[in-house]
């Protein structure tokens, strides 16, 4: 009896492994959440204070600014220093040694660069009307949080206010929690050692007891930790509210722009947008204040449930003998697994994990702005899918008449379907006619034709797309030259919905007919000559030969080729993206280019992920029906 056999049916090992796994994963999840809470509190406090300082400087000249900065420093000892930089000038500083105001020194170049960067970011945001550049710079290093916010004079960004806040990291509060976790683990091992599992049966009291004991042990431990996290969250919100209240009082005292509005304008994210968790007067806002901690811990709760389920699975795996079998298989086939491992690991990390992560992402509201927040806070369930699939307002009847909403999913879907059908039809018909022509008996120069006609397929398709973009150029493009040659008016190809669609169709038709031609030609050449001879003897016309012999015999080759080319065309990103770019106004976007633009031009990562998930679902359904259809035609 070797060690693999011994693994079988030991409740102790199973309990130990399961408990260790659950404790490790749960500890990691909760530890991460606790660290997030602490880190965010530090950052929020620093950002809030810096924003408040910047607000208090409004309308102050250099001298008054210096006085106000000193007042801040005196009121909150945790503030290590505050400096104000405008252009290449250090306007104010709480450090007496800085002797402000003075010009920046050479070694202070980073400050000058920061002013430029934040000013550029602010101007970009203002010009584009979209907030996509960070205007607040936060660095958390060595127990000091450094925050730089824009310093505005009459609403224009003129410089920065930089504040350094001493915020020593709380010592890792691992001690007690770790001891408790170890105790739970020891208890699990101890109970496991006492439980007897009957190897001859699939189900017995020992197994049930093991499951119950495991659940009770780790569950109790998790509940206790979860309570601690809730308390920390509440404490964090209360602390921020207190800072807001103090800051508001101080601004009222030293002067400057008093906080207005219901929501604190100082408690912001990195883009200067209020978080809406604290009122201007410094009270936690009831609307979100009460719900937010709940929302934040709900994800941890769900995560813990999943981890518990995983732990039970591991326990079952051990007591039902799965572990023993796996160990035996691993040892027996060590060679094989060794050879597969590199590719498998690569696929797991860079194909399967991203795929699952993408699907998980589609259930969140992740954008460029909140991607740093904990995953659980971004979880919104099926909202993205409801937004995509539930928006049925394709046509809008407004004051300016009837307008099609080109951003609507169903419009894009319709364009994609038309795009796929027309392209595949064009490819198949041209391919078929050319293949028939090339298959003529005794045709001279066939290899030359073949090579020349295959060229469009050989050229990288992004180059093809850009070349056609050039040929469709409205002013100097060759195609409009030819039209004008014959007395037609030039066409503004990318301005009309239909004409822009045609540009894509022509380009894709051009690069896809060679594939069909080659495939069909190969199939034609494999049809035995004597079948046609027999048909001719019987008196069949050319048309009858085509209908009754050629087409049926082509079917086995043609069906897979069409299936393949449907998927290719459906996903033909490069042509749409590079030729028309979905112009005009996104009307010619296909699903896949639309998803790309949502992700990388509008930075709505989660919405784009949901979009892609829908595309995947459509392809799955297509694949399912296509397999059934192919089977049906095979039996025909």
């Amino acid at each position, binding site marked *: 009896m070797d060690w693999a056999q011994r693994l079988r049916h030991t409740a102790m090992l199973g309990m130990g492994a399961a408990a260790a796994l659950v404790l490790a994963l749960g500890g990691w999840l909760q530890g991460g959440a606790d660290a997030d809470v602490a880190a965010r509190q530090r950052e929020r406090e620093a950002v809030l204070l810096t924003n408040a300082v910047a607000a208090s400087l409004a309308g102050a000249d250099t001298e008054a600014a210096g006085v106000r900065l000193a007042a801040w420093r005196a009121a909150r000892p945790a503030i290590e220093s505050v400096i104000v930089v405008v252009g290449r000038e250090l306007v104010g500083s709480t450090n007496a040694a800085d002797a402000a105001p003075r010009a920046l020194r050479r070694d202070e170049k980073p400050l000058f660069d920061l002013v430029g960067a934040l000013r550029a970011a602010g101007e970009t945001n203002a010009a584009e009307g979209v907030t996509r550049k960070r205007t607040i710079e936060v660095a958390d290093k060595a127990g000091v949080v450094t925050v730089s916010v824009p310093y505005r004079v009459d609403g224009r960004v003129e410089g920065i206010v930089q504040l350094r806040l001493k915020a020593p990291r709380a010592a890792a509060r691992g001690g007690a929690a770790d001891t408790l976790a170890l105790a739970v683990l020891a208890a699990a091992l101890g109970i496991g050692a006492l439980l007897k599992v009957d190897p001859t049966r699939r189900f017995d009291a020992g197994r049930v007891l093991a499951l119950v004991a495991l659940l009770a042990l780790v569950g109790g431990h998790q509940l206790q930790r979860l309570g601690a996290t809730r308390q920390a969250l509440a404490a964090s919100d209360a602390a921020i509210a207190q800072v807001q209240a103090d800051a508001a009082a101080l601004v009222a005292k030293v002067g400057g722009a008093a906080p207005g509005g219901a929501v604190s304008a100082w408690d912001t994210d990195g883009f200067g947008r209020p978080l809406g968790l604290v009122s201007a007067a410094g009270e936690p806002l009831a609307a979100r204040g009460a719900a937010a901690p709940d929302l934040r811990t709900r994800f941890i709760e769900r995560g813990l449930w999943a981890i518990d389920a995983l732990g039970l699975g591991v326990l079952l795996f051990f007591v039902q003998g799965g572990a023993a079998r796996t160990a035996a*298989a691993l040892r027996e086939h060590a060679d*094989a697994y060794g*050879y*597969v491992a590199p*590719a498998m690991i*690569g*696929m797991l990390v*860079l*194909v399967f994990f*991203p*795929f699952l992560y993408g*699907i998980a*992402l589609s259930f969140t509201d992740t954008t460029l702005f909140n991607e740093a927040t904990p995953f659980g806070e971004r979880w919104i369930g099926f909202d993205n899918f409801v937004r995509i699939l539930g928006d049925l307002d394709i046509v809008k009847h407004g004051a300016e008449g009837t307008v099609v909403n080109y951003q609507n999913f169903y419009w894009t879907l319709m364009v994609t379907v038309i795009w796929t059908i027309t392209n595949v039809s064009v490819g198949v018909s041209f391919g078929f006619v*050319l293949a028939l*022509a090339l298959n003529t*008996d*005794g*045709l001279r120069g066939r290899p030359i034709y073949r090579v*020349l*006609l*295959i*060229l*469009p*397929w*050989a*050229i*990288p*398709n*992004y*180059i093809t797309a*850009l*070349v*056609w*973009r*050039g040929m469709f150029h409205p002013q100097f493009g060759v195609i409009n*030259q030819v039209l004008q*040659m014959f007395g037609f008016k030039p066409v503004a190809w990318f301005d009309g919905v239909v004409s822009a669609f045609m540009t894509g169709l022509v380009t894709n038709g*051009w690069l896809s007919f060679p594939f069909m031609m080659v*495939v069909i030609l*190969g199939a034609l050449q494999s049809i035995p000559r004597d079948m046609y001879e027999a048909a*001719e003897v019987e008196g069949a016309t050319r048309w009858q030969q085509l209908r009754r012999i050629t087409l049926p015999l082509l079917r086995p*080759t043609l069906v*897979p*080729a069409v*299936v*393949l080319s449907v998927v290719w065309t459906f*996903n033909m*990103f490069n042509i749409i993206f*590079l030729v028309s770019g979905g112009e005009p106004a996104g009307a010619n976007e296909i699903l896949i280019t639309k*998803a*790309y633009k949502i*992700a990388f031009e509008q930075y709505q*990562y989660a919405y*784009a*992920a949901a979009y*892609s998930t829908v*595309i*995947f679902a459509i*392809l799955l359904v297509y*694949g399912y029906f296509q397999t059934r259809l192919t089977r049906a035609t095979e039996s025909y």
Partner: protein
Amino acid sequence: MERPNRNHWGIHLGLIVFTLLAIYPVLWVLALAFSGQQSVGLIDLPKDPSFLERARGVLPWPAHPSLKNFVDVMSEQPFGRWLVNSVIVSLLTTLLGVFLACTAAYAFSRFRFPGRGAGMLAFLVSQMFPGTLMLIPLFIIIVKWLGLGNTYAGLVIVYATTAIPFCVWMLKGYFDTIPIDIEESAVIDGASRQTIFIRIILPLAKPAIAITALFSFMTAWNEFILASVFLEAESMYTAPVGLRFFVGGFSSQWGFFAAGSVIVSLPVVVLFLYLQKYLISGLTAGSVK
């Protein structure tokens, strides 16, 4: 068919016209590349051009043939650097991709182990994942988490893994055709698995490995979307991203684009024409399963 030696002038006429239309864009790029100028029109047309003048503008022959665009794109523009980037990325991808594909394909072909069927099926299924669904997570993983944006490594590992399934299926098919007796006699002679794999199987599978290598190379050489998402620094662009840079958005340096396109396409087109029959059989075989 009743007269095997009859004249096919009708068919020839149709084929010639269509072939000319089909290769016109190719000729157009060539003409632009050798034109020595940057505009998208082949010649400067007068204000009210006549029919013949317009016809001259359409004819794919440069007004003043010169090599200026080729010289300039390599010397004045960073295109040489982008080509080098593309070559490095493609070669590394080929090396890594072939290594991963060979070992896995060998295991799938020669060993019977639990999980073999599931593994091969998983490889096949992964081919259905749509590109954009992978794009966002890959961007987050490679650029945001691993910090491999603007590096060769980021592109190489992604290209190599995305090429794995196709390569594995193709190589496995080839390994299957190598008789197992050879290995058995080697085992009797006392050779280890490694020795058999390296000394016997790999040399025998050279043709298939060559095709796999070329496929990996062309995947990386022609890839545009991932590269444009991963690479922000101009000095790290690969050739496809660089070519788009010439004519995308508001810039229109069509001469540079055309010359660059010719340089980039030439090796792939030659390879493709040489290898087309293998690729075609591989593609259609993949779709039937």
